[in-house]
């Protein structure tokens, strides 16, 4: 069981408080979504959780061990991170892009050994990319690229997966597809942390919610506890109405 804990984390950037006194816990086997309005500090929190950014105060613990004490390479092996709208700059084949996810496990100065072949195949298959494996990554559609990036993130089977806005720029079908794949990772026992704007998808697929507003923690807990119309209305400063049907929760906003 690996859990990531933020303990009284704060972040100050050019004199401005970006995050203040954040306490949060992300458990293994659970999909935790981070929600909140633009500029609430979601991306900063994800950066801190993934160890890419040092907090100004507080601690980040992975399995009761300070994250900062892990070596760059060990950390890279244990958690994968996908930024918003991740792209590839060269027309590299999808297969090679996925293989880049193995970078922290490669021996120095050697190409990807043949023994990694099955892992790459498995990641390609998990993301329905087998038919696209030789296509240049720059020629992929938005949905295909998102899948390729996810395959890149999971190819090394990291215990923790942190994803910033996986549905940004995707049509509904691809957005649902993307979140389902993240759900599958959580079901496989990994810790999954996702910042997301699409409330409907968040509430349907997540186990837990971290709600951020102006750098403060507004609410934190299982979806059933946090997802109330009142909390969400306060979070977004618009009136939110929730309704339930057989396909799950539906979110509506009133102007």
């Amino acid at each position, binding site marked *: 069981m690996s859990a990531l804990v933020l303990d009284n984390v704060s972040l100050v950037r050019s004199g401005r408080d970006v995050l203040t006194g954040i306490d949060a816990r992300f458990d293994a086997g659970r999909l935790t979504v981070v929600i909140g309005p633009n500029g609430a500090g979601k991306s900063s929190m994800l950066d801190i959780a993934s160890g890419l950014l040092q907090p100004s105060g507080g601690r980040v613990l992975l399995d009761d061990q300070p994250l900062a004490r892990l070596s*760059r390479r060990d950390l890279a092996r244990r958690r994968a991170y996908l930024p918003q709208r991740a792209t590839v700059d*060269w*027309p*590299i084949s999808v297969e090679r892009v996925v293989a880049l996810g193995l970078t922290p496990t490669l021996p120095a100065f050697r190409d990807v050994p043949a023994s990694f072949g099955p892992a790459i195949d498995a990641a390609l298959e998990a993301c329905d990319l087998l038919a696209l494996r030789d296509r240049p990554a*720059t020629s992929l559609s938005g949905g295909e690229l998102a899948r390729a990036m996810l395959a890149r993130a999971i190819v090394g089977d990291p215990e923790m997966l942190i994803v910033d806005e996986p549905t940004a720029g995707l049509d509904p079908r691809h957005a649902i597809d993307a979140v389902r794949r993240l759900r599958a990772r959580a079901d496989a026992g990994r810790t999954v942390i996702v910042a997301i704007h699409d409330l409907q998808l968040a509430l349907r697929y997540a186990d837990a919610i971290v709600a951020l507003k102006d750098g403060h923690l507004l609410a934190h807990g299982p979806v059933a506890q946090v997802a109330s119309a009142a909390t969400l209305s306060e979070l977004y400063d618009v009136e939110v109405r929730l309704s339930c049907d057989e396909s799950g929760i539906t979110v509506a906003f009133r102007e």
Partner: protein
Amino acid sequence: MRRMLIPGLTILLLVAALLSLLAGTFWLSPAEALESFTGGRESLSALIIGDIRLPRTLLAVMIGAILGLNGAALQGLLRNPLAEPGLLGVSAGASLGAVVAIYYGFTASFSLAAPVFGLVGGFVTAGLGLLLARGGGTLSLILAGTAVTSMAAAGVSLALNLAPNPFAAYEITNWLMGSLADRSWDHVRLAAPFVIVGATLLLVSGRALDALALGEVQAESLGIAVGRTRLLILTGTALGVGAATAVAGAIGFVGLIAPHLVRPLVGHRPARTLVPAALAGAILTTLADVATRLLSVNGTNISLGVFISLIGAPFFLWLVLHVRRRTA
């Protein structure tokens, strides 16, 4: 096919180098060339091959290789197909350093002055560029490079303006055209150590360059120290390109073109591009140097840098159109 790339390029380079030993104002036949090794040490062909064409060929190979390698590394680092050593101001800085060394008499006091000043100039501009771009991304590094390039160019003009030698203006113009004419073993000995160290620094960054294809954040998340990689590559650039510029003057376009020639052949992977780009750069420079010896207009030979620019500029145009089409 891909496995044959490096051996194939190596064979091409050897052929080009051989041609470079035989070609010139006087063509030597292979028999004469062979004779130069067996015949007297002071025979005409032995002197021409041993003391003029061999160092010149080695310099062409060395300089072309470091420029090609550098272009590949910088394009990978900046994730920009138009990046080249000149972009970051290293060549301009090296030019300024060398100009100061040559025209204010430091070369007379110690023979290493030109390359050392060239290196210092390259280092200063690279450092200044890094400092200006600190915290910013690729774009700010490119902008900072443009800024330091203009500063170094202004410095060259000032050095010229105040130069004690009335022919300085003519000479510096000539020197900025880039040439390998009449270089000797002294120049090889001066440049080689810096070029080798610079090339090593660039080659060890291969893994990082591959990861950087995903952007700096993802590379960082994959355990790559992006800041250190940037420092490594800029140091390698300052060392290698600084030394090359100090010895041969400004030779543009090789660093831009060479990576593009080989990139499709290695599946566009940044790390795999490095060695073939170095070989392609070496072939390009060696052949261009041979061409400049044979081509003359009204009795004046075309300078190496000018010749390469004449080929390079249309290629650059094509590249811009091509990139525009791809990103449109």
